[in-house]
């Protein structure tokens, strides 16, 4: 009998992403139907095929439901302060350029309190990948309005509906100089996985926006059903348009969603520019900086 159980247990295949997770921290804190977990699944699958040495990959998060991602990944992981994962990642990367540095955080974290850091990191073309889970809301603090909340949507601090213009994140990233900009939803798991893999392989500042459901706060308050209903909405209303002009991909309340890879260009990253510049300036006296 015991042997039989053992045999059955041995024959249950291990989830291939398990080795990427801190399984001793599971169960996670995310609600049923939350989109964040799906994005993490895609991220780990992208890592798996990326060929990266996982000992050299660092993940940095800010504060929020998405901010908890760092704590579940079996990588060097840093859960920093609200809005500041990008400047932390800046120090990490510049101090050791060998590291592959990924910032994984929420829309409020990266674009409200942390917006200034985002635009400057993109401008500098720091070699890092920034993944933003955009659930159109502040999840962790109970569903307050975010700089990504569509007009008319309600949030706990816009009980009569939002009237502020939200950011068009791909356009923002594009205009600040990001070398890779894509948008997907939590429904597009294969596209997203491929996109994360591409972003990880890209030298310079790469940015992926992932629209993901927050059934507990955003969907419920806006009477959009549960997580599955929101996935259905993504499925039925998304249009893949690679190379779309980022000016034209702004989101509106429950409107059509343009997804795809919008920007993929090359521009020397911060440290390359620094080394080239000092080499010109100082000649042989300068030793190229490698960390």
């Amino acid at each position, binding site marked *: 009998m015991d042997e039989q159980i053992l045999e059955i247990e041995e024959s249950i295949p291990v989830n291939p992403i398990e080795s990427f997770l801190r399984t001793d921290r599971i169960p996670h804190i995310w609600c049923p139907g939350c989109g964040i977990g799906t994005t993490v699944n895609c991220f780990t699958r992208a890592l798996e095929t990326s060929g990266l040495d996982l*000992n050299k990959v660092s993940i940095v998060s800010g504060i929020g439901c998405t901010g908890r991602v760092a704590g579940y990944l079996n990588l060097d992981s840093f859960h920093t*302060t609200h809005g500041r994962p990008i400047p932390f990642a800046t120090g990490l990367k510049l101090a050791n350029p060998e590291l592959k540095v990924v910032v994984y955080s929420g829309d409020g974290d990266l674009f409200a309190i942390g917006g200034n850091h985002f635009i400057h990191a993109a401008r500098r073309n720091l070699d890092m990948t920034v993944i933003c889970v955009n659930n159109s809301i502040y999840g962790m603090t109970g569903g307050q309005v975010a700089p990504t909340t569509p007009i008319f949507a309600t949030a706990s601090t816009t009980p009569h509906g939002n009237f502020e213009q939200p950011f068009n994140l791909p356009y923002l990233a594009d205009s600040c100089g990001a070398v890779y900009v894509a948008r997907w939803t939590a429904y597009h798991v294969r596209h997203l996985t491929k996109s994360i893999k591409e972003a990880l392989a890209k030298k310079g500042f790469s940015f992926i926006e992932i629209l993901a459901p927050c059934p507990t706060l955003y969907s419920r308050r806006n009477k959009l059903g549960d997580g599955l209903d929101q996935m259905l909405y993504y499925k039925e209303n998304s249009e893949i348009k690679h190379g779309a002009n980022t000016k034209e991909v702004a989101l509106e309340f429950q409107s059509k969603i343009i997804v795809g890879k919008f920007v993929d260009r090359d521009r020397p990253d911060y440290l390359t520019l620094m080394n080239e510049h000092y080499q010109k300036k100082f000649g042989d006296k300068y030793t190229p900086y490698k960390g």
Partner: protein
Amino acid sequence: MKADPKAVLTGAHFLDGDHACSEGAIAAGCRFVAGYPITPSTEVVERIAERFPLIGGVFIQMEDEIASSIAIQGAVWAGKKAMTVTSGPGFSLMMEHIGLAAMTETPCVFVDVQRGGPSTGLPTQPAQGDMMQARWGSHGDYGIIALSPNSPQECFDLTIKAFNLSEQYRVPVLFMMDECVGHMTERVIIPPAEEINIFPRRFYEGPRDEYLPFKPDEDLVPKIVKAGDGYKIHVTGLTHDEKGYPVMTAAAQEKLIPRLVNKIKLNAEKIIEYKEDNIDDAEVVVVTYGITSRVAIPAINQARQEGIKVGHLRLIVVWPFPEKRITELAGRIKSFIVPELNQGQIFYEVERNAYGKAPVYLVPHAGGTVHNPKDIYNAIIKSLKGK
């Protein structure tokens, strides 16, 4: 460990305090600096920016002080020694990240060249108004170390000490200069590199699978590793266990927070440094730090010439505060005089530790310039009359 001879400018120099601080950081092994310009601290980063490319350092002027104060922490977790530099308004913006460094036990140095406040205040003129902010400015309970130099030479020497203490105790160390010390130019002797002692980072060296990132040693300080070493560490500003994992319970808080306070409190006698003059026979003790320690000297000398037994206690390490020493002195002297370029900060600390055994008199100053020594002298005389 000794300083890197390739980077140390051994010899006699004529430097201002800001530049001496830069050289101290370089000698201490600092190779990552992030900052945002602000008077009167800017010269520190300007010299760093000048010197770093040829000694393998990275300086980055960040978009603000919030970014600067966390970029240095990223750099530390990637293995560098790092500092940021600012003055009042920027120091206020850095508070959350002083707390982060305390919570995550990230060794790093914050330099604050103090100017008149609050708000934009007196950008180009001195004050010592950030001393309590240095100790208590971030929310919650934690321990830090703060030093206060009174000359360019000390800006050099004590910056090295600041780095060494931050490594030894894995705390943010606050280097509390002031505009006068930052901008005064004096002779600075930079010793040969082999005479500069460097406290090496406390890297973990035990068996890999037994590593617990926040398990303290006997002195309450845990061993560190860096990103990329294969340990897959988790570092969080949330309350965490020895593994570094978040634990949202009162029990976890009780295990962590008192240790963060006690690693400074219980090691205080090893950390504290002050200088005393004419203390043995003193009836009045003037307690000073930073530029005020020099302004007080003419006042003390004049009083002594008149036969008044005045001693001088100058704080070099301000936090942790030499509580015991103040209490001892209070038991046998007639009064303390505390001149500060503020409306009373360290004064309260002296008063608290005097336990009412000796009266403590504040000589306040709003900042903008230094005290007139006469005011300090008058306070000495008055204190003996019990006023």
